[in-house]
């Protein structure tokens, strides 16, 4: 795509430099912390699945035990590795032993540290190879069946019942949907564990469980094979279990993940250290295994004014990008977010949106930019929403977005009914076909409204980035710089799950992921 906004490359570089500093700062501040979720993820990677009768996952039982015993600073991997060596049990039996009290993990004799590390590292490498092999197969399937050309349409299902989600997902695929994302039930984010098994009750979404992932994946793969087009599956690495969901996603062959660095802090009131530590591992996993991650700047425009907040969106895109990058996600796997959220009554709102969308596209040429539909100002009138969605779809294609979450006509009322997505996808197909070549055909007047606006927003973003680099990301969040939401380091949920690493902290996963990723999408 030829650039159209006449941006000052110097400002872009300065933005990147500021973001690098902000990210380096964050990484330094969280480097000595681990979390219960990070530790549970290690166990899951090692192959620990399942839950006890009360639905408490074994990974939770083990990590909680080690936490209670005060040993988590050394890393759960150490204790489990030691347990494996000392008891000669399988990981699952060991965990069940912890669950039923027959094994006191932290009270076992301690074997040679190197031996413990070796056994866990070996297990970890083996599992990673297994996962990588499965993902290579998936990549082959993707290539064999082929995907739609960009923009890929990203569609949420949200029935609460995974088996209904399958029906709804088929309708999505039938009408050209490219990525199905099962959004999660309202309650899940704040659960400090991942529910187990298939679920049929949920509110505003369906629980993300490994079994639910499996059920959806199977159904969508079936559809893909039958219809000769690969449809992707996505979920949400967010809330108190970010890295665990990432691991589950990899295990079940998901292709995409919504995986923002700050969403949990701002919109779920999760403690910021907790989220930043968790996002790092979740992104390392996603990065390594070729999962495309989506950031969530769109949310800011739902709580702050879309015009005023535009520079903060761009600033956040740079930060989110850098944090992901520093966690090991390659640019092609980072889909930075943006949204069409200016009030429909604003004069020249369409021009502003065009400018903003083009700006994201030009600032992140190697990223899969993701564009989100109008929701905030949508009301109970589906035709009004549909008209806004039509212009949203037009900007998507006119600015060459890579992924677009589709807008549904009942956006202002409820999570979509089965036909609402179909009607929405027809709108997408209509606009995307009718305006297929638009991006190549139109130009913006030199020095005109659209160019000027983009240049202004970029300047505003640089100012924010430089100020944030100065005061640090934590302080900036405290000031409500993003989405007009203010959160403080000492507040928020899940802080009790943060643990300082001891000097002998051991985490075989981070090390293993440090190598070159095996799979790229």
């Amino acid at each position, binding site marked *: 795509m030829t650039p159209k906004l006449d941006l000052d490359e110097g400002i872009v570089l300065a933005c990147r430099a500021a973001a690098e500093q902000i990210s380096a700062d964050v990484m330094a501040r969280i480097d000595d912390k681990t979390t219960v979720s990070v530790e549970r993820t290690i166990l899951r990677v090692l192959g620990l699945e399942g839950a006890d009768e009360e639905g408490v996952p074994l990974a939770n039982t083990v990590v909680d035990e080690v936490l209670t015993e005060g040993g988590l600073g050394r890393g759960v991997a150490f204790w489990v590795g030691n347990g494996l060596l000392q008891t000669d049990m399988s990981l699952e039996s060991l965990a069940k032993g912890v669950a039923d009290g027959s094994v006191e993990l932290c009270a076992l004799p301690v074997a040679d540290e190197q031996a413990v590390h070796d056994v866990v590292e070996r297990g970890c490498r083996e599992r990673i190879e297994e996962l990588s092999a499965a993902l290579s197969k998936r990549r082959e399937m993707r290539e064999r069946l082929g995907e739609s050309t960009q923009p890929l349409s990203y569609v949420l299902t949200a029935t609460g*019942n995974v*088996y*209904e989600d399958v029906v709804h997902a088929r309708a999505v695929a039938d009408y050209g949907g490219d990525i199905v994302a099962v959004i999660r039930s309202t309650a899940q984010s704040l659960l400090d564990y991942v529910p187990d098994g*298939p679920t049929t009750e949920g509110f505003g979404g369906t629980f993300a469980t490994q079994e639910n992932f499996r059920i959806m994946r199977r159904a969508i793969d079936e559809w893909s094979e039958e219809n000769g087009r690969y449809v992707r599956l996505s979920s949400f690495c967010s809330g108190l279990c970010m890295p665990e969901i990432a691991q589950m996603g990899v295990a079940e062959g998901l292709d995409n993940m919504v995986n923002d660095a700050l969403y949990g802090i701002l919109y779920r009131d999760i403690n910021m250290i907790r989220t930043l530590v968790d996002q790092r591992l979740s992104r390392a996993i996603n990065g390594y295994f070729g999962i495309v991650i989506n950031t969530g700047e769109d949310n800011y425009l739902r709580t702050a004014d879309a015009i005023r907040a535009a520079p903060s969106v761009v600033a956040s895109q740079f930060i989110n990008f850098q944090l992901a990058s520093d966690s090991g996600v390659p640019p092609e796997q980072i889909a930075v977010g943006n949204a069409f959220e200016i009030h429909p009554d604003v004069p020249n709102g369409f021009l502003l949106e065009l400018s903003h969308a083009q700006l994201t596209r030009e600032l992140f040429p190697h990223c899969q930019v993701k564009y989100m539909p109008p929701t905030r100002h949508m009301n*109970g009138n*589906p035709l009004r929403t549909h008209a806004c969605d039509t212009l949203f779809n037009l900007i998507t294609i006119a600015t060459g977005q890579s992924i677009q979450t589709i807008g549904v006509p009942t956006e202002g*009322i409820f999570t979509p*009914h*089965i036909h609402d997505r179909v009607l929405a996808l027809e709108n997408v197909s209509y606009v995307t076909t009718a305006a297929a070549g638009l991006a190549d055909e139109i130009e913006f007047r030199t020095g005109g409204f659209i160019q000027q606006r983009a240049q202004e927003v970029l300047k505003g973003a640089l100012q924010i980035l430089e100020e944030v680099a100065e005061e640090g990301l934590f302080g900036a969040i405290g000031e409500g710089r993003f989405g007009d939401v203010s959160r403080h380091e000492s507040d928020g949920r899940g802080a009790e799950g943060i643990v300082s690493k001891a000097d002998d902290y051991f985490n075989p996963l981070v090390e293993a992921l440090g190598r070159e990723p095996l799979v790229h999408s």
Partner: protein
Amino acid sequence: MNPSSTPEAGEGVRPYADRDDGIVQVSFTLPVRDSRAARITGLEIAGQMGLSRAEVVHSQPVTAGYTYLILYGSFDRRVDVDSIRRDDFDMDYMDHDEVDAFAASRIGRPVVVVGASTGSDTHSVGIDAMLNLKGYDGHHGLEAYEAFSVHNLGSQVPNAKVVADAIAVGADAIVVSQTVTQQDLHIHNLTELVEMVEAEGLRRRTVLVCGGPRISDELAKELGFDAGFSKGTLPNHLATFLVSSVAQRSATSSPA
């Protein structure tokens, strides 16, 4: 077992939105000022329609004294769809060649067809799609068939002229199109045609067909036609129906 909530065969169906929940959308304007009273009147109507848990999701003034409402509610009864499926339901259509072959072997002479868009209706695209060589959507019209001898009278044709011409050419079939339906214009016009055909004593020996975007087979039969065709009709659909009907009539009338 089907773990989704879709009902099993025989259970009867109801609307499905998020799951087997009966949810329907209803919208209308009331001649009442935009007000709480308008919304409650809307809910009252939804209630009378048998909708439970109805709610108004949108209301706006249309002009002074009128309010547009959008409601959702649940239709909780179930309808037995199996009893609705009948045998003659979805006809299997012959293609162009099959129709010609069928007519050659079973009728042995061209079927004479008189067609028009009748009354004050100037919409000719539908009837032309059925009859003219050019046809519709890549399918030739009846003029291209060996099976038919076609007289397309065009549009804005009074029923009296249709009937007179049908008599003049000895039509086997009269096929008419109706597009304007406001204030039930098509009903009046189609009813008039049936009455005229009957008055002329032609009804038994003439296949009578109508079509148009808002004609259904049910409506057509109710009005006294042999069949009705709506959107999505291709010329071979009409052709199949005509040759089948004419062949059947010859079969049942010849022994008599």
